[in-house]
């Protein structure tokens, strides 16, 4: 443990401090959005959005390398794909709920297929594996500010709208009867989910993002009586998993992302058996 703290103080180990900071700051949007995702039981929607991003990234990479659209950064491509996927899924959820799972599956696989084809035609530009698994140790200073801004926006919106978000998650029909703009709220939450995923997928990879979005709130739901309590526990667990995962990864010299995921999974299983 002491070696890990020494490393954190090492002036040459900025990457480790950045990874820790990104985990701690990201814990806030992960805890808030993750709680919504878990209580609404839409984890598969979050996973589909996360995977569809590859389509946008691939298209932007192709546009940059083949058409010279230098301003079209892959981040914008990812953002475009995520928001588009969120809106399509949201629309299908409202209009054709019975076909939702099919549409989610299509968006999931076609987004990845499109991305892989575009990336294949943009040689030497991008490694899809890095996108799938990411590397939290490559986080830069600019990323910290971006995630900080996201954490601020998501927290402000979620806390301000908490009664309305709770109502649409709990009893959408009653929320409509009370005059709440349930469709707008539904789309807003999906867009916030997409934003959270886009910003953090590029730093942590799809797998770690889906894990941190679902596992901490799922554990928190077993231990809390209120939604506010669930969010608080999920935020703390997120931070602990990042910290503990990085420490274990550093000590064992194992890749950090999978260690964080396995740590979270182990705690989830323990909570399940100790209910």
């Amino acid at each position, binding site marked *: 443990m002491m070696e890990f703290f020494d490393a954190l103080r090492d002036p040459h180990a900025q990457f480790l401090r950045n990874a820790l900071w990104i985990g701690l700051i990201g814990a806030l949007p992960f805890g808030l959005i993750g709680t919504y995702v878990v209580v609404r039981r839409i984890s598969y929607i979050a996973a589909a959005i996360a995977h569809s991003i590859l389509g946008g990234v691939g298209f932007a990479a192709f546009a940059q390398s083949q058409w010279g659209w230098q301003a079209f950064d892959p981040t914008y491509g990812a953002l475009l794909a995520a928001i588009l996927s969120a809106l399509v899924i949201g629309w299908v959820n409202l209009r054709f709920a019975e076909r939702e799972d099919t549409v989610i599956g299509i968006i999931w696989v076609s987004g990845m297929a499109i991305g892989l084809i575009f990336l294949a035609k943009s040689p030497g530009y991008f490694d899809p594996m890095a996108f799938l698994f990411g590397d939290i140790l490559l986080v830069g200073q600019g990323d910290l500010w971006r995630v900080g801004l996201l954490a601020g926006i998501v927290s402000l919106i979620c806390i301000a709208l908490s*009664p309305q978000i709770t*109502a649409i998650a709990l009893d959408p029909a009653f929320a409509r*009867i009370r*005059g*709440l*703009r349930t469709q707008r709220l539904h789309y807003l939450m999906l867009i916030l989910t997409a934003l959270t995923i886009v910003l953090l997928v590029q730093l942590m990879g799809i797998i770690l993002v889906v894990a941190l979005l679902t596992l901490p709130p799922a554990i928190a*739901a077993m231990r809390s*009586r209120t*939604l506010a309590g669930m969010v608080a526990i999920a935020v703390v667990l997120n931070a602990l998993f990042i910290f503990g995962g990085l420490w274990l990864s550093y000590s064992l010299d194992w890749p950090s992302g999978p260690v964080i995921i396995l740590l979270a999974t182990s705690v989830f299983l323990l909570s399940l058996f100790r209910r």
Partner: protein
Amino acid sequence: MNEQANCSCPSPAVCFQSVSFAYERETIIDEADFDIAAGESICVIGPNGGGKTTLLKLLLGLLQPNTGSIRIFDKALAQGTTEVGYVPQSLDLDRRFPITAIDIVGMGLLHKNKLWGMRRSEREQAWQALDNLGLAAVGKKPFAHLSGGQKQGVLLARALVGNPRLLVLDEPTTHIDAAAQERLESELKRLRGSLTLITVSHDLHFVARGIGRVICVNRSVRIHPVEALDLELTQRLFGQPVALVKHGEAQATRHAHAHPDAVDREAER
């Protein structure tokens, strides 16, 4: 038979004018034309699949009619909905959804511009609404862990906390035992007259208590005085004769469950 008037009362709580609703070309509600006076207690009955739920959703603004108009307290439905308290048949909550009974009741004070959490005054109002129903003791318990009767009491408190002028109950006796049914009945008795009460129910025993008129829904919508609910009418409506037992008599009433195909078509009368 007292056929419905065309919104004849001067200030009706509910006014349906030529309301029709079809789903995928199948007519569910056909030219419903009726009104309910402010302060009236009325029941909606009909066979499963006959359109009760659709009528309820139209009344609550959850569905839009294909033709016709619905007014609540003389206002178009969209503006009138916050004056309506609604008790659903049940709230099938995932046991992992962490919410306490008092937070559920607080939802009854929501409105479209509501921001931040419950204020202290709103929380006190919610506690008062629970206390009025003798349920203060369960306020801090997780909603998912309550009994059927307690859950329904909490949902009733949620509907009443905003002081609605119209209370709508959907199949209130479905998930509760006899004791909880008695408590519900005495609460509704207390509320009768102070607000307009619409109860959707397949339970004709429950319907018979303290109700003046019934709305019979089987694609067409007809209003009858409760005394007219004789064997002949229930035979036409449910496809089998159902004897109505008035309050205080032996509970020999059979619950009516009939396939919609087996029931009469009021329009053929």
